[in-house]
């Protein structure tokens, strides 16, 4: 961890609530408004991406430092250059209500300003036009008139940028909004597309990758996330992932395993090889240790080789709302102060939390909810002097009234539970055969293991060791791959299929049954094949030179295998999923159920199995 550039006392002085209040009172305001086409929802991803906005506005990169606090959010100090001068400041966390408003406050320790608050409001005028207001409030060491001219210039610069972004109308896509013009890189893009012909047959995928690497802002190009890219270019994310894997094998890209913090979702630790990974990582912006789960927050991304584009992960604004899109609302409350906020949110489920308090509240936004919530921040989040309930229902536009009874500044946030991350998890990658084929040495360190919340498995098992066993195994291998799974040969009689989706696992099982019926014409005695499907928690570990799985889902597989001599047997969760019901309506195969792992039947089976085998 790098040393904090200013002393804690100096930082404390700048962050003193009385000082902040004083700055707020003294601050002069410069603002400008502009009508732009588009709705706040579609403009928000671009207008709130202050990191890229700053870069486009010609600002320099910032170095950020964090100072861990005994409780609450760590302090952040940033250093940058402006017109050749060093500028340094303590930054309070950004405050926002997506997609209508954001602002940030900075208490300067170096530079021509003492205080700066930068804010943007997006107000829908009608269904097609949004009024954007950019506001800078400042306290300067410079003479008032000079400072005002300089700040006005900054505001104008941002307004021009907002206008240009709105005119691009990228449909809310952050990725392409900040690209450099195509004409600047066209020759290079075409050359790259051509040179990759042998590695990727689909020209659209080649173009998407080349276009992105050469035109995206450096911080984005530094980390290629196949799912994000697939969405921006309307491509199949799996095909794009496979292309990235092949290009990595040709040294065009490098693998990058990112451990994402469950709080801020940022990739806080990254490694080139799985064996470098630890089960626990640290996030300095949230000041927490967090566990790494194979299917939850361990992501595979790709970094272009420096010969294609030298990239580094430079930030122009580390606390930008666009860096934490899963947070819909965030606010700071100075000690002893009150805050009233209108929760103008879409219906859905959110989690209200702060690093200061151990409890959190699930907020359900629904028309039947209350129109006001009054909370106090004490040791816990409290309602009427008692710990707040775990769950509260509020209507859209409800008032949230907060009082900070703690002695430190409190940052509160509402996380959208429904927000979908565009990550490709390590568990998903394990279900791609190309990954196993091309990177067989990418395994965890010996003795290391990581949990998986849920993994889908298909076990194909020939109960009788026959001459046809190797043929059946070959068939299983082929069909598991045909349904986008990866096959792991356990023995001559058993093949394990690893799948990213339960649907694909069932489809593979179904297909195997169909093909087996054809193959049985060839055999004097029909071959039987048990197909056991399970889905559930387990653990991935290094088994010799390859990854293997153990735990509940694997245990269920083996139990299922013992329950059947032929046919398809699946754990209860498969029968519960509505998207899979079409399979169970097919009359041609018998679908057997493995009892629920929490039920008594399952325990009985487990005891029987243990008596028999273990």
């Amino acid at each position, binding site marked *: 961890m790098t040393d904090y550039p200013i002393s804690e006392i100096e930082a404390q002085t700048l962050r003193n609530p009385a000082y902040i209040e004083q700055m707020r009172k003294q601050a002069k305001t410069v603002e400008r408004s502009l009508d732009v086409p588009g709705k706040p929802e579609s403009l928000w991803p671009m207008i709130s991406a202050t990191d890229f906005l700053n870069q486009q506005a010609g600002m320099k990169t910032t170095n950020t430092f964090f100072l861990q606090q005994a409780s609450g959010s760590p302090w952040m100090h940033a250093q940058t250059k402006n017109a050749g001068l060093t500028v340094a400041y303590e930054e309070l966390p950004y405050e926002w209500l997506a997609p209508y408003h954001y602002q940030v406050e900075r208490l300067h320790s170096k530079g021509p300003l003492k205080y700066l608050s930068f804010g943007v409001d997006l107000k829908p005028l009608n269904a097609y036009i949004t009024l954007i207001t950019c506001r800078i409030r400042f306290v300067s060491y410079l003479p008032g008139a000079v400072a005002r001219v300089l700040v006005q210039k900054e505001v104008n610069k941002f307004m021009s940028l907002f206008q240009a972004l709105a005119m691009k109308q990228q449909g809310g896509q952050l990725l392409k909004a900040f690209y450099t013009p195509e004409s600047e890189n066209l020759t290079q893009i075409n050359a790259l597309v051509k040179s990759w012909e*042998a590695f990727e*047959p689909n020209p659209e995928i080649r173009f998407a990758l080349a276009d992105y690497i050469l035109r995206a802002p450096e911080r984005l190009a530094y980390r290629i996330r196949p*799912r994000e890219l*697939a*969405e921006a270019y*309307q*491509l*199949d*994310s*799996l095909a794009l992932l496979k292309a990235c894997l*092949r290009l990595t*094998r*040709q040294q065009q890209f490098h693998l990058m395993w990112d451990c994402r913090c469950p709080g801020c979702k940022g990739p806080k630790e990254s490694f080139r090889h799985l064996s470098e990974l630890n089960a626990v990582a640290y996030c300095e912006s949230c000041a927490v240790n967090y566990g790494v789960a194979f299917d939850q927050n361990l992501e595979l991304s790709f970094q272009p080789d420096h010969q294609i584009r030298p990239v580094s992960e430079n930030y122009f604004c580390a606390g930008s709302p666009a860096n934490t899109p899963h947070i819909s609302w965030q606010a700071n409350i100075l000690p002893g102060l009150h805050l009233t906020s209108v929760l103008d949110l879409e219906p859905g489920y959110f989690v209200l939390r702060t690093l200061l308090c151990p409890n959190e509240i699930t907020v359900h936004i629904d028309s039947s909810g209350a129109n006001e919530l009054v909370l106090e921040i004490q040791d816990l989040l409290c309602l009427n002097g008692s710990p707040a309930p775990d769950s509260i229902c509020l209507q859209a536009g409800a008032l949230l009234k907060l009082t900070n009874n703690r002695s430190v500044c409190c940052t509160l946030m509402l996380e959208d539970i429904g927000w*979908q991350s*565009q990550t490709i998890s390590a568990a998903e990658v394990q279900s791609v*055969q190309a990954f*196993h*084929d*091309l990177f*067989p*040495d990418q395994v965890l360190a010996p003795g290391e293991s990581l949990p998986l919340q849920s993994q889908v498995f298909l076990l194909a098992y020939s109960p009788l060791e026959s*001459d*046809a066993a*190797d*043929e*059946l195994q*070959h*068939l299983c*291998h*082929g069909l598991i*791959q*045909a*349904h*986008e799974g990866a096959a792991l040969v356990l023995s001559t009689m058993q093949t394990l299929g690893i799948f*990213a*989706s339960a*649907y*694909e696992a069932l*489809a593979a099982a*179904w*297909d195997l049954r*169909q*093909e087996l019926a*054809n*193959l049985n*014409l*060839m*055999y*004097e005695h029909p071959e039987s094949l048990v197909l056991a499907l399970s889905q559930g928690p387990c653990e991935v570990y290094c088994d010799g030179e390859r990854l293997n799985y153990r735990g509940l889902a694997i245990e269920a597989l083996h139990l299922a295998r013992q329950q059947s001599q032929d046919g398809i047997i699946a754990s209860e969760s498969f029968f519960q999923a509505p*998207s899979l019901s079409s399979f169970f*309506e097919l*009359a041609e195969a018998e679908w057997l159920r493995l009892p629920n792992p929490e039920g008594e039947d399952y325990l009985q089976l487990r005891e029987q199995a243990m008596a028999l085998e273990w």
Partner: protein
Amino acid sequence: MVNTAAALFDPTAFQLPDILKTVKGPAVQSPPVQAEVRFVEQQLEREHTRPQPQANVTRNLTRQVQQQRELARSDQLKQILLQAKALRATDPSVPEYTQGLMQGIASLKACFADAAAPTDLETMNLWFPLLKCQELKWEALQAGTAVDVPTPEAKLLDKWRRLKGSLSAVEKATVYQLILGLNALIERRTLPHNIESSSSDPAVKTTPAQAADTIQTTVSEPFDPMTSGRQILQLRAKILRSCSEQEKQGLQTQLSRLLQQQSDYYALRREQSLGLHQSQYARLCQELKQALSAAQIQQMREQTVKQLAHLQRLFDQDKSHPGGPEIFVSASRQLARLGLSDAEQVLTQEQIQQSGWIQGFSAQAQASLKAWLASFQLLLNALKQSLEALNQRAKQAQADALADQIQAAHASFAKQSQALVYLEQAWQDADDPAEQSALRQKLLQAYAELILDLPTP
């Protein structure tokens, strides 16, 4: 999988049976290498040219190449199999039928031609004579002479089933099915009045527009329900994992098209099967007009029940009409009750139910089902009449037998009566008491035998 050098195989040195020695067969070209296979092969080639190739990566990619090749060839073979299956609905006397058969053999040969030949000696030693057998059939078809399945083929096919060579199980199974299928088609060619088997798959086309035509001899783009089933599963999985609305829409369109094709395919198969069965019922009705034995009629009923089960399975594909399969279950019930005392009552009841189920179908399907039902009723009536005639004949035969029996008994009684008269006369005429006693015993014995021979009431 065995992977010995097939280059060691010398066709000129191979000891072929005399019948196959001079066979040439069709001239074919090896199939073009599919883009997917070529791509994986290139990937493997690149791996070999690395300064330090990784053994496990090379091994994995080699397996991928093999799998891709197998997949490509399995698909080709399945297409040929489908083309062959489509011929089953064609009149064997038309030239297109023979051309279709020849094309099937040529395509099979092309599948394994030149570079695509099996890569091990064990497989080549079987495939080579097996191919020669097919070429012999091809030459006979071309010459227009009688086509016989060469004698060695059965033994070769049996060995083929047990072969452990470089071909995948799916490839072997498809070749096996294809050769048997071609043989069945060749046999059908010599039996012009062949009745379609219950498992027959009529030729189908993929679009409703084409469906309006009559059944064609060959299918330009055969629709494989199994392949399309797999594609449907893959597309649904893709939709589930897709994160782009636009991509989802595109996939949904593809899925809808495929589902529509599948729906059309089964609708057309239902239509065609109903049509085929109608013509078969008409033929059966004709046959029933001749005096048939009970065993022949029973065989007909069993065959019809099998066909009804086939129709039932076919209508089970259409989940939108749950009453579909019931129509044929009901028809089976009617067949089963035929000839029994409550037949009329059951038949009427089932027919009412069938009419109700038919109402749920589209107008076109209703018309086909009604036409089929009418022809089925004609068959039932013909069967009923035949059974009645058979019953009548049996009753007559029984009556005749009884009459014969009575006549024989009467003759025997007359003979015995005459004997009694003679015995009685002799007994009365006898003077010697010993002789009289012996005759008395004989007379009593004759009376007792007469009483025993009298018919019981």
